[in-house]
Every structure is written in C-alpha cells, then in structure tokens.
C-alpha cells in the first residue's frame, strides 16, 4: 500500500486535532485493541475496506431511482464499479445482532447477541482474528453498539468507537474511545470524525501489510442530524408517504420509542440529508484510497433497513422487506467480472465475514454460517441458496414479537411467538406486503410448504 500524506490531504482530510491512544483523556476498562502476531501475508493480498452504516434501507440509493430526489453519488459510483445485490438481507433487523453477525458470520442464535440488551461475549471469534493471523493489519473505527462493557478487541491494531447514549453515539461532539482512551471530540461531526480517524490510521500505520478496515458509521440512525451545510437540503422536496402512513404515527405506542417523535416528514427529510452527509464522507474515504483502489475490496452495507410509514411503522425489527433488506455493494477490481451489474442472488450480512476471508485467501472457520459470495462476484455459476432465514428476538420495550421468517424470491412467510398469527405475502404480486394471505384457503398449501421450510431452516441455523 502506498498511501501518502499527500494522498490523504488531497482526499480532503484535516488531520489536525485528531488524537490517538495516550494523547488525551482517561483510560477506559475496555475498548483496547489486542494486536495478534500474524504470519506474513502473501504479496498482493488485497486490502479490505468494509463501510457499515446504520438504518440505511436498500432502496435509498440514488442509483436505484426509487427516491427521485435522493443523491448518493459516492455509493452510486461504488455500485457502478462493482456489484450491487438487490436482494441482500440481514439475519436480524436490529443494530446489535446485525453488528455481531457482520463480525462473526453467524446468526444471532449462535453468536448470542440477540437484541440490544444482550452482550457480546469477549473472545467471540471474528474475522479480525483470522485476518490478523494471516498477516493483515486491522482496525475497527466507528459504532460498536453492543451491550455490556466495551470489550478489548482481538485482531485489531486500532479500535475507535463510542459508548455515549448506550453506544448509539451522538452526531455532534461525540466523545470517542480511541484505543481504550476516553477522547473528547468537541466541534466535530461524527461521520467526518470517524472518516478522519480511518484515514489517519491508513496513513500512519502503512507498513506494507495489507489492511482490513471497518468503518462503522452512526449515520443514518436517529436523531437524524445532517451536517450543518446540508440541513434543509430536502426541505422543499415532495415526500411520498405510503398510503397507510400519517404525520403523527410517530406517537403511536408501536413507534414512540424509535426516536422520531414529531412530524414523520421532517424526520424523513433529516434522514435523507444525514444519508447525503454520510455519502460525502464515504466519497472522501474512497477518494483517499484511490491510489490503492485496484487492490482494495470495498464492501458497503447497513445493519438493517428502516420503515418510513410502511405498515404504519417507523423503525425496523419486523420481517418486512423495508426492514430486512439492506444496500449491499461490493467493489473488487480483481474479482468482479462485470462491474456495474445488479445481482438478484439472495445474500446475507452473514456472508460478509466468510467473503472477506475467502478473498484474502484465509480459511473460513466452520462456525461461520454465512457463505462466501466471491464466486458470485466472479460470475461463476454455482449452487446458491434460493431462500433466506430471518430471526428476531424480543427487544424491550419495542412492541415487536419474536419471530422467524423465510424469504424466497416470491414469498415472505413469518411465524411469531406468543401466539400471534403468522403472515404470508406474495412479494411479487404485493411488493409492499400489505395483503396477508396466511388465512386464505387458496394459499393453504403454500403456507404449509413454507412453514416446513421455515422449520428446516430453524433447525439448520439456530
């Protein structure tokens, strides 16, 4: 890697004011990197950059054209240079479980972070362990947001995160924990600050080893605060809410804890502006790594989608497409044979960890439940899954029942705990999943078949 200070500065980074371990603040009880002495990575090993956002729903990319006014130029460019998967799902549409799945390649039933109250068990193997052992220098910079004490993280050489607001962070002046040191960050905007730290790490630690960097943004989670210069960008655009939505649905019991109390349209505009701000930071990061882009795999995805009024919901968790589908883009210059394509293969957030290892030439641990999508990226004809399994665990105080679901190319079938009736949707005829066919006798056989498939998947993954 030959990333120079000039490259960084050309990328627009202001390094002034960044603090690193030992420079400011007081030590915390966790959050320290635990470097692993690794082998020497083979020459030419690809760099790995994972950009992970929060609550970014799949159709909110400019390139999809689904939201006419929305601009995401950096992500659109990334998609045009790589593969975009338009049937990408999360295994659990919730922050903490999804983050653990990204790192472990496992379902929540296996890694144990089942909701936003169940802790990450220190020592849980992540792809960082394997990559560090294989000679990668690794860093995790951004939102950790898994309950319990912030752990020390094996395999990484830089760990920058935050614990304020129970790990949700704040958009402005967000105090960071930099390698285990509390670090005030007055005057900063979190998406920019995290990007600055990422670029600083890339430059300062460049020692010829390939890197694996995860940048996990707070954006675009509520409180939906865009950068100052973007506030109001979408004030005048027309908002097309779903038929069943209304302005103050945010005050309903089902939505009131989602942090969007107030006018739905206002929150939505701020969400889009915050997304625009994050996209700008992603562009800055991608620009800065341009000198090594040919040998860098970039993955962009989010922890879950988000409902903006669909089913009168504001939030995630429910197994509807708005919540379980995420943007999923992979740019791999040496691997992708048809840049700019859109794949309809169903992929999972659990596939990211094995994919990174596969691309790096590192053995995939048997405990990982996802599959490498590298063959799909290379355009190889392989046997691939035709359905995905979804699970959700109770997450107090959110009024969403525990559920398991199977999503095929046509059907979404959901079974709930606590005696709630199942739901069945024909997602081809009814893409908004409005008409529950579960009790329609005409679909009894379909329901029976999907129930059996769900039972099989439950046995396989939980």
């Amino acid at each position, binding site marked *: 890697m030959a990333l120079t200070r000039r490259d960084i500065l050309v990328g627009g980074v202001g390094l002034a004011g960044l603090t690193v371990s030992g420079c400011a603040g007081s030590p915390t009880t966790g959050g320290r990197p635990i470097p692993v002495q690794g082998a020497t990575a083979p020459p030419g090993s690809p760099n790995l950059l994972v950009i992970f956002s929060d609550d970014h729903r799949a159709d909110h990319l400019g390139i999809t054209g689904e939201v006419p006014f929305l601009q995401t130029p950096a992500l659109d460019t990334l998609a045009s240079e790589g593969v975009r998967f338009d049937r990408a799902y999360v295994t659990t549409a919730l922050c903490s479980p999804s983050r653990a799945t990204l790192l472990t390649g496992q379902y929540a039933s296996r890694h144990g972070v089942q909701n936003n109250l169940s802790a990450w068990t220190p020592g849980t193997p992540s792809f960082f362990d394997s990559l560090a052992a294989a000679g990668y220098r690794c860093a995790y910079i951004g939102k950790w947001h898994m309950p319990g004490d912030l752990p020390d993280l094996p395999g990484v050489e830089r760990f920058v995160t935050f614990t304020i607001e*129970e790990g949700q962070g704040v958009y402005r002046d967000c105090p960071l924990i930099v390698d285990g040191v509390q670090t005030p960050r007055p005057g900063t905007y979190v998406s920019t600050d995290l990007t600055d730290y990422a670029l600083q790490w890339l430059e300062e630690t460049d020692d010829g080893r390939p890197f694996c960097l995860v940048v996990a943004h707070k954006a675009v989670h509520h409180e939906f605060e865009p950068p100052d210069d973007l506030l109001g960008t979408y004030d005048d655009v027309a908002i097309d809410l779903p038929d069943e939505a209304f302005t103050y649905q945010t005050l309903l*019991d089902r939505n009131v804890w989602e*942090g969007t109390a107030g006018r739905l349209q206002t929150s939505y505009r701020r969400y889009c502006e915050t997304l625009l701000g994050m996209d700008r930071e992603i562009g800055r990061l991608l620009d800065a790594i341009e000198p090594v882009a040919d040998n860098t795999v970039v993955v962009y995805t989010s922890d879950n989608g988000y409902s903006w009024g669909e089913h009168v919901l504001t939030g995630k968790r429910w197994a509807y497409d708005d919540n379980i589908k995420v943007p999923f883009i992979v740019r791999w210059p040496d691997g992708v044979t048809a840049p700019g394509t859109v794949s309809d293969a169903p992929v999972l957030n659990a596939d990211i960890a094995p994919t990174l290892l596969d691309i790096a030439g590192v053995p995939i641990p048997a405990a990982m439940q996802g599959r490498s999508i590298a063959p799909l990226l290379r355009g190889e004809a392989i046997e691939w899954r035709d359905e995905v399994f979804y699970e959700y665990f109770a997450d107090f*105080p959110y009024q969403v029942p525990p559920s398991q679901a199977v999503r095929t190319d046509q059907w979404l079938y959901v079974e709930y705990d606590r005696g709630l009736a199942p739901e069945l949707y024909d997602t081809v005829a009814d893409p908004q999943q409005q008409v529950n066919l579960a009790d329609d006798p005409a679909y009894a056989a379909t329901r029976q078949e999907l129930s059996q498939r769900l039972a099989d998947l439950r046995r396989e993954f939980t």
Partner: protein
Amino acid sequence: MSAAAQSGAGAMPGEAARSGPVGSSSGRAWRIAAPAVISVVTFLAIDLLLAALVGRPWGPAYPLSMDALVLLRMGPVFFSGLIVWPVMRARGATRAQAVVGILATPLAFAIVSGWRAAAFFPPLEAAYYSTNPMVVGAIGSQVSSAGVGALVYALWRARRHRSGRPVSSGATPLPISTGWSWGPIVAIIAGTALTVFAVIWDGGQHLFYPWVLLYGSLFG
C-alpha cells in the same frame, strides 16, 4: 333549575352545587369524580377508535383524521389536569381526591400501554412497561396542567370577588382576595421539569436508557 343558574351567571360549572342542596352521597361523589371519569372515558374512546382505524386508509381524509385522533388522544393523557383539578376542587374534592383525579388518565394510559405490551412480553415485563417514560411524562404534564388550572381558577375567583360577585369558598386553598399562591407555581415548575426530563430533553433518552437498563437488571 341547574346548579349554574342557582349560583348566578359566570359561575364555574358545578360550583354552586356544592353549596346548594346536598344530594345523595353517591351523587355527590359522582359530581366530584365526573371530570376525571370523563377524561378517562374520552381517552379510552379515542384510543379504541384509533386502534380500530389505524392502518386502514379509506381515502384522502385518512391521514388527517388519524393525525387528529393521535393528537386528541394525547390531550386527556397529558393535559386534562387543566380542567380536572379546578373543577374537582370547586366541587369539594380534597387535595388527595383531586390528585387521584388528575392521575386517573395517565393511569389508564399506563394500563392500556401495559395491556398492549402483554401481547409482546410476559405479564411482569408488560407491567414494567406500564412505568414507561411516556407515563412519567404524562404525570408531570398533568401536575403542571393542574397547577395552571388551579392558578387560572383562583385568579378567576379573585376577579369575581373584587367585582363584588358571589364566590364560593370551594375546597381550593387559594386565597380569594388575590388569587395568588405558590402551590400552583411549584406544581407548574415541578411538573414541567418532570415532563421535560422524561420525554422532551434529548428526546427523553436520559430516562429511557436507565429505564431500559433497569428492565435488563430485573428481567435479563
């Protein structure tokens, strides 16, 4: 003849009834409790209507109607103390009775919330849900609303008194002559502070997170 007519023009509804012929004890109890009961019933009626209509768009009026119902539902939960407190006190309610009166609708709100939560959580956890920050905020708002109601009522009585019109002593401790007392002011400040802390300041997260963490400690 109505009670208002007996007391002369401009009397607060029901005020003269207290000083007029005393009916049965149950009738008197009803008169005292009526404002709180009406508040609770209003909340329940709107809540049921909202639950029946939400998510079933019937036409262009649907969003506006639903917004109106959502906001109207919040009225008795958060602000009925504005009326309930002074009317109950004017009808002879003790301070304790009036406190129960202004807390009745937040309590109903808590019970309904807990009842709905029971569809998603075990009974004890659903009961804990009933202590949520919205309920705390509603209690604070009711206290401050009661303070405003008491103050307005006292000022109204003082104005009548100064103009030489008849004013009943009522059960309110506020002096007739000036209408001034620190009690309502304290209620307004304390209630507002509680509401701001519970649901407004930073979106209420300073109470929300401790409440969720306590849940984790109790049931995790």
